[in-house]
């Protein structure tokens, strides 16, 4: 386990396992994920579809629906284990101390209620005694904070009257209402245009710097993470295969999958050159390869990979799950 710093982290996930018990078999969507997020820190959770990154987010906030179930591990939020917490206590945290932002803001917003109604509802759910005027004032301030022009008038609008980017801002404003300590953002900018994405990233960054809110930013886009995150976790097949400080991981990747992923990003390569192709396809969660899930696609795989690799820490603050990591890279980073 990672060492406890002088100030305890906002969130510590230890060996989290979330499995889906389907008719076709058990899908191990999250299978032993561990990481920590410090106060005011941005953690980037990166992976391709089916890597378990979203399910990790849902597991933390207790939103895994049957047939899925958290079957093991701990989620320590400010030292308190959220796994197995009774639903009432979880409800008190959710939307209050921990908030979530989804890819599609219409998942968060009720289309038939005005924005002010929804925002006041969120405040009253956790502060039932707050006078209406105060709640409205806080809602207005939250809209202002995320850069919505003329928040007083916009409070009276319905969600469909906002554009996509503005809707996402409203969703973020709602997440901010109760000044949470942790926000989990699941692909919040994937559906947005580049210039609008820039605006949202700007707000997210400002928020973490100014309020000390911790942020878990789930995405498939390495470039977004590069600009925003302090730490990065790369997920593959339900496991974190590599994690560490953003610069170290992106400049000196140790795991073959991370290296392959970075090699296949166009911006990272010379123009017109051939992109590195990770051979094969991501495995189905129902039929995970034995041992290391990446081994069938890995150029370094051999007989040793039939055994699932343990988490190793080749240099402090870097973790990797691989039998044959590119350690020379890690040493380069440490130097």
């Amino acid at each position, binding site marked *: 386990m990672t060492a406890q710093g002088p100030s305890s982290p906002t969130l510590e996930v230890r060996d989290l396992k979330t499995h889906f018990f389907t008719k076709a078999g058990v899908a191990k969507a999250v299978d032993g994920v561990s990481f920590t997020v410090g106060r005011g820190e941005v953690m980037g959770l990166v992976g391709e579809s089916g890597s378990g990154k979203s399910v990790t987010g849902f597991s933390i906030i207790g939103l895994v629906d049957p047939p899925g179930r958290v079957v093991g591990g701990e989620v320590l939020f400010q030292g308190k284990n959220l796994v197995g917490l009774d639903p009432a206590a979880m409800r008190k945290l959710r939307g209050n101390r921990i908030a979530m932002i989804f890819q599609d803001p219409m998942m968060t917003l009720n289309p038939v209620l005005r924005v002010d109604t929804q925002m006041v509802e969120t405040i009253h759910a956790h502060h039932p005694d707050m006078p209406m005027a105060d709640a409205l004032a806080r809602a207005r301030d939250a809209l202002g904070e995320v850069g919505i022009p003329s928040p007083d008038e916009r409070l009276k609008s319905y969600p469909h009257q906002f554009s996509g980017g503005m809707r996402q801002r409203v969703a973020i404003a709602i997440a901010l209402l109760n000044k949470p300590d942790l926000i989990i953002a699941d692909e919040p900018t994937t559906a947005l245009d*580049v210039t609008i994405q820039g605006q949202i*990233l700007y707000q997210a960054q400002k928020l973490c710097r100014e309020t000390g809110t911790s942020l878990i930013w789930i995405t498939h886009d390495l470039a977004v993470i590069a*600009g*925003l995150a302090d730490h990065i976790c790369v997920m593959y097949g339900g496991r974190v295969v590599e994690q560490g400080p953003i610069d170290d991981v992106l400049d000196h990747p140790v795991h073959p999958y991370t290296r392959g992923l970075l090699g296949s990003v*166009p911006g*990272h390569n010379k123009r*017109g050159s051939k992109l590195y192709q990770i051979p094969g396809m991501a495995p189905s969660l129902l039929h995970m390869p034995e041992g290391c899930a990446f081994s069938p696609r890995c150029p370094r795989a051999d007989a040793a990979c039939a055994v699932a690799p343990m988490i190793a820490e080749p240099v402090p603050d870097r973790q990797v799950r691989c039998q044959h990591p590119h350690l020379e890279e890690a040493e380069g980073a440490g130097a």
Partner: protein
Amino acid sequence: MSETMLEVRNLTKNFVKSLDLAERLAQKLGSNIREEVVHAVDDVSMAVPKGSVVGLVGESGCGKSTLGRMVAGILTPTAGEVVYKGKPTGAMSPAERKQATLQIQMIFQDPFASLNPRMRVKDIIGEAPVLHGMVAAADADDYVSETMRRVGLDPDYRRRYPHQFSGGQRQRIGIARALAVKPEFLVCDEAIAALDVSIQAQVINLFMDLRAELDLTYLFISHDLSVVEHISDRVVIMYLGRVVETAATEELFHAPNHPYTQALLNEVPRLDARGRDYKPVEGEIPSPLDPPPGCHFHPRCPHATERCRVEVPKLREIVPGRTSACHLNDGT
């Protein structure tokens, strides 16, 4: 510069939402209901040299897909013309036109929606070449196998249905379908946007291989600047129906001229830009129903002057091979 494969001249496409009976009556009675006109593409001219890849970039609603569809012949332009190999498609004889339409093929964004779920892969790929008499029905099977092999699909799967394939494989089926009629020009409309990073790389590589093997010309439509930078020779930037800048890829990424291009390049997340301070462009993309007067970008532009609010800037050559539509260039 080598010969021009395809050129569009003053191409315009308006979508009109016409009034229904009740609205027409209301209009007669004096209400101010009017027809809504979306100027999806507004007087666009551009050229694609033979054998090159031209990247068409813009945000949602800028008209890049509409332009691509007009080039591919799926939509009819409201005004202007598409010139293929030196001949306007409007002036072609029916036979020439059919030939041109066959040679320009399109690859779509959504590999789930663009394949008929009830057709087997061999029919999806093999139907068009047989119909157009390029391949005898008896040889279709071999031809399909060969085409599938070319895009990296196992021909053993040719009797399967699209739902039995993954997203990346389905995109390959779409590419195979386009290639089956031996096109010379491919319009790729966000063809890799729906794919995972590692699959994206495979498809980008496939496009580059095919270009070399079959001497293809591409119009590559995308909102993803890093992909466009990687694959294109020239880049065309669109904003709200108009072209704002065109340039060779290196020049454009090295020194963007138009303020919108500059803003766009600034916003692009990059792997080597760590812990950056985001300084976003202000404002929303205006609705194409009611675009701002003058330069479309002026409400968001940091350099906007009085002139920009009134006068539409012309797309003009600023250095040879490079055009930009901005009043600021007149000062120098």
